[in-house]
């Protein structure tokens, strides 16, 4: 029997086995599907959250506020100092008058808040637009420290702390996806192992005969390996289908809202989807290998105790 014949035989026998024990097979498929679905949900949230953090980071600015008594020369000097940094895309000086005008333009109903001050309540500032991909956290931290030490600078505001916290959440979600998904996948592997072991146990008489007449272990175990792999693949496909359905449902329900942005603005890319299915197939195969490790001993015991077929 050549390899193609053997594979065709394995598949045929595996399909027959799945059909014969469809209830237990369905349990295995659902277990692995559920674990992959849950992993996929965590992955989906972490990817969407990561995208959101990236978008916010790209849109965020650093504001360097000057002391109230600073003059135009101070503003120009600080702006030049900031712009000299290689990772700064733009550093735009904003005069106190311009800040006031922009505030009034943006919030006309609150314009009276700016009345009655001895000095401009809105100080002059420099709006810094970093080239985000080119700057790392350490460089930025060092730069802001330097700027704060300048006597003309009052304070430096940026969104890094908040973005950093969001990044921590994203990383935790990815870790949780790995841990929970991994734990569930291990459970699924053992479930498949039990199902395959049950199938092998039900066929132990035939396995004994196959060994007796000269079947190789590859020939004997192949159908069970194929059965486990098919179960895992079906579980993976089920998980991908459920993820897609959930994604569409969430998009329809929450649209552009925060929850929609968190889980339903971007679906898993094709590589990740294929990886999920492949992970299911690998888990199924692992389960089959695990179960058949002890099958030979079971089969030998069956042969020793073989009675009449009646």
């Amino acid at each position, binding site marked *: 029997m050549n390899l193609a014949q053997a594979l065709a035989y394995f598949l045929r026998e595996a399909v027959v086995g799945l059909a014969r024990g469809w209830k237990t097979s369905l349990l295995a498929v659902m277990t692995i599907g559920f674990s992959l679905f849950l992993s996929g949900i965590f992955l989906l949230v972490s990817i969407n959250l990561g995208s959101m953090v990236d978008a916010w980071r790209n849109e965020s600015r650093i504001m360097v506020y000057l002391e109230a008594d600073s003059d135009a020369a101070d503003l120009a000097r600080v702006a030049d100092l900031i712009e000299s940094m290689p990772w700064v895309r733009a550093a735009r000086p904003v005069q106190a008058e311009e800040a006031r005008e922009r505030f009034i333009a943006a919030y006309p109903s609150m314009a009276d808040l700016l009345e009655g001050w001895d000095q401009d309540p809105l100080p002059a500032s420099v709006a810094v637009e970093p080239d985000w991909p080119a700057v790392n956290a350490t460089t930025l931290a060092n730069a802001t420290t330097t700027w704060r030490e300048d006597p003309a600078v009052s304070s430096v505001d940026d969104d890094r702390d908040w973005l950093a916290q969001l990044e921590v959440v994203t990383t935790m979600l990815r870790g949780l996806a790995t841990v929970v998904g991994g734990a569930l996948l291990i459970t699924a592997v053992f479930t498949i192992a039990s199902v395959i072991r049950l199938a092998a146990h039900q066929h132990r008489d035939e396995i004994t005969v196959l060994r*007796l007449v000269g079947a190789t272990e590859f020939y004997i175990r192949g159908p069970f390996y194929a059965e486990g792999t098919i179960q895992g693949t079906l579980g993976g496909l089920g998980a991908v289908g459920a993820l897609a359905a959930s994604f569409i449902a969430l998009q329809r329900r929450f649209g552009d809202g925060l929850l929609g942005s968190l889980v339903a603005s971007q679906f898993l890319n094709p590589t990740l989807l294929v990886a999920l299915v492949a992970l299911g197939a690998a888990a199924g195969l692992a389960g089959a290998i695990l179960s058949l490790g002890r099958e030979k001993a079971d089969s030998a015991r069956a042969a020793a105790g073989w009675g009449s077929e009646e």
Partner: protein
Amino acid sequence: MIELYHVSKRYPGGQIGLSDVSLSIPRGQMVFLTGASGSGKSTFLKMIYREEVPTEGQILVNGRNLAALPAKKIPYLRRTIGVVFQEFRLIARKTVFENISYLPRILGMDSARQRKLAYDTLRRVGLAHRINAFPLSLSGGERQRVAIARALINEPEILLADEPTGNLDPELSEEILHLLLEVNLRGTTVILATHDRALIDRVGHRVLTLDQGKLAEDRELPPGIVPNMRAGAASAPGGDAAPEPDAALESDAAPGPTTALPAEAGGTS
């Protein structure tokens, strides 16, 4: 050729399977293996098809040292050895054809060749008309003949039969015995383990007697029963007057074979 050199087998716990057995069985010989229960008959047979390995000594089958045979080579050894058991070991959910066609399928034969080979082999044992039957619909003697057909389908060099008549009444036992004698006449080495001394004395040939794992006796008896070869069966499988394969495959109603034996009337030891 089967050769044993000082073969011993001790199981975990100290139970002795065989103890210092040395002997040689030439190709094509008919050998009876006898002894009380637990004397080591099954252990002896298991060692030849490499289900067990000796704890001491060497077993050579056609020059191959079985103790040194790698596990992955065992299937290829077993394809040259047919094994028949007292309890038949047929798969109840499979038809007779499926039960005997495991090895042709493993060897990758197409289904038409499998069918033809199965038919020819079943005709040898007189069961061509039962090719589509299920084991549970067969009598004990028929089941054992199916088991023998499974063992013979690849024309093995050696046929091992472990108490093949143990579950059968005397008449069916004679039938099976004569079938095995026919197989031997075709050149296959047959080793038949039985505790039925009367049967051995009547049939003759070489008799090995085991006692508590030791070879207590190795004697040659003159052949008694001569099997009645069904017409043409000895010269070519399927050479008897059974219906053509296609017709037989379609029906289970055809009459069964006969293994009428002169010895049944006047066989002597």
